[in-house]
């Protein structure tokens, strides 16, 4: 169980893994996530389900090496198993059946988070456009895969090394200023990016969904660590989300909460690197 059956390095520091977990693969739907624990002393971290193959019992995750857990995970190989793999968690993505045109906006690790939704909508004959963005050319991935399912794919990089120089929101602004309209916009990526997208789409009154990734422990609603303010209510991203109406999200609060353990996580990662001989 939880055996790694596929491992691919997509771009530097970003890995795709296929985990054999028939029970999760059988129930998975676009928009959901898993919680995994790599080792016995490891922490529980949430990761988006990038894709799944119910017949083969495989769940695909894509992760960037940012800390100790993802670092250890990246060193495992095909045939290795991870300690725990729980899911599918969270509410699946639900689209309004009247909606016809969609714009997806994904930054960095948000790219895999839109993949299964895009595929599903495409199979229903919806019109889909996509903007992906990253710091540099090497942060843009899955381009060919996404192109198969959309009518237009726009790319931006901060340093201009690929696509249009600038931010995803620059492209968004241009599209909207040129008169483009969508029934729904879905943005996934860094909190700052999602906030910037919502600031723009609010002005145009276009329904905008975002997928949040707050700090989580159990992922089943028990601990309350993933609470976010949505409108005037406290919601738990793990059972009420992770997808919310972007206009109602308290992004500033979310950003602060997400940074709470940053110093300890850095410390833990640094110690880990020292131990395996990669010390700084």
């Amino acid at each position, binding site marked *: 169980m939880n055996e790694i059956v596929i491992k691919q390095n997509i771009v530097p520091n970003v890995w795709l893994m296929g985990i054999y977990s028939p029970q999760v693969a059988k129930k998975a739907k676009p928009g959901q996530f898993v919680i995994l624990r790599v080792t016995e002393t490891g*922490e529980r971290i949430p990761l988006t389900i990038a894709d799944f193959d119910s017949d083969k019992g495989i769940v695909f995750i894509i992760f960037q090496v940012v800390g*100790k857990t993802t670092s250890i995970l990246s060193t495992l190989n095909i045939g290795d198993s991870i300690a725990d793999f729980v899911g599918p968690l969270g509410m699946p993505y639900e689209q309004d059946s009247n909606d016809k045109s969609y714009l997806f906006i994904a930054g960095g690790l948000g790219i895999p988070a839109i993949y299964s939704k895009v595929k599903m909508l495409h199979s229903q004959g919806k019109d889909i456009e996509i903007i992906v963005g990253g710091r540099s050319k090497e942060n843009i991935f899955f381009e060919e895969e996404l192109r198969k399912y959309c009518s237009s794919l726009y790319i931006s990089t901060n340093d201009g090394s690929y696509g249009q120089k600038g931010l995803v929101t620059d492209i968004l602004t241009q599209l909207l200023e040129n008169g483009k309209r969508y029934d729904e916009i879905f943005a996934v990526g860094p909190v700052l990016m999602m906030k910037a997208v919502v600031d723009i789409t609010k002005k145009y009154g276009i329904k905008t969904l975002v997928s949040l990734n707050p700090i989580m422990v159990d992922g089943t609603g*028990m601990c*309350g660590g993933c609470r976010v303010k949505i409108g005037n209510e406290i919601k738990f991203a793990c059972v009420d989300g992770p997808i919310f109406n972007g206009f109602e999200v308290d992004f500033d*609060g979310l950003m602060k909460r997400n940074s709470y353990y940053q110093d300890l996580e850095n410390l833990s990662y640094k110690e880990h690197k020292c131990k395996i001989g990669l010390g700084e």
Partner: protein
Amino acid sequence: MQNWIGGIEKLEVLKRVSIKEQEPEKRVNNFDEVCLGYSSDEAVQEALRCLECKNAPCIKGCPVEVKIPEFIRLIKEKKFKESYLKILETNLLPAICGRVCPQETQCEKNCVRGIKGEPIAIGKLERFVADWFRQNCEFEFEKPESNGKKVAIIGSGPAGLSCASSLAKLGYEVVIFEAFHKLGGVLYYGIPEFRLPKEVVEWEIENLKKMGVEFRTNMVFGKTFDLEDLKQEGFEAVFISSGAGLPNFLNIEGELLNGIYSANEFLTRVNLMKAYKFPEYDTPIKLGKKVGVIGGGNVAMDAARVARRLGSEVYILYRRTEAEMPARKEEIDHAKEEGIKILELVSPVRFMGDETGHVRALELVKMQLSQPDSSGRRSVKPIDGSNFIFEADNFIVAIGQSPNPLVKKAIPELELNPNGSIKVNENLMTNVEGVFAGGDIVTGAATVILAMGMGKKAAENIDKYIMCS
């Protein structure tokens, strides 16, 4: 025996044999168990105080009706193994109940010895024989012939474990599904090691495995699997004991600030994820010099005492007075011995933070108690203009839980009470055929023994249901 008791000093009969505990100064620096338990001699001495009342009022106070005078008589006779087996006839988890049951409001409350002196230390004696057995005997179980019927249990907490044990004894094939990676539910993630060592919980679970109970971890009911899946796998009945659920918050300003934990998150990080061993374990926890714990139940006491052990100065903030606290007296006493201070009659108004989004203080309002109403409960109301600021680095909110919404997703037709808990009839069956429920998901946050009592009762009714249908 009676004559012998009559012969010793009256004072000795009035007072219970005192029990050794780790010194407060020492124990605030470790997570080892506070209570060290009776020695064999001490246990026998304490047992000798028991009058073995014919009508046994103590039994009436016990939710699972442990045969108290009988197990205590066996201690008097130094038949510790037999004593343990006697308890086991009605209570599957004596080592756990002996530690976490609120005996003072149950069995010991009714003890005749308590009228003039101190009641018999029933809980401590229960714990003694359970520990003695664990250290000296092998758990043996003659597996009954399988009746070929399968029952699924959702959740491996006290209700689920006790239901599983009762059903296994009757020959059922029992599978327990647990959402976490560790078994035991609240016994594992909630109750800290210094009150209930993990090895005790693990030992009890190993015994269940020996009884043939199967455990499947990382299985979230309503997500990983649902009722339909269970039916397809041939389960003829389901017992839902998934626990209390989502932590309640105060719904006041500033509650999303960093440094404010729900008791569930705080205890889970420490007990389950071993954050106190960070960075050896990867899950972090952050706690400053001064911590305020909001609430007055056992969970609040546990959180406060864990915070104390992580090195903080801890205050419990409670809206009534210590006398009204729902926590066990022993836990309150232990907390106070450990230097935890209690601020009575205060209610939170709003949290205040700094520019980084971290909490720094809580505005409190002083409360006053009214006369008891017809139910005997005294209500509280705020005193206008008595607001003041309580500064602290962290706050832990321990004000109860609300039912988890996931169960409803696993069984959409399931009928709930207005507060979201599962509605059951007198047989603990829900409105859905073959689906039973018990423990905190039905009662709201309650005690281990109450949950166990419901697990046992559910097992009896599940047996009737399956055998009659």
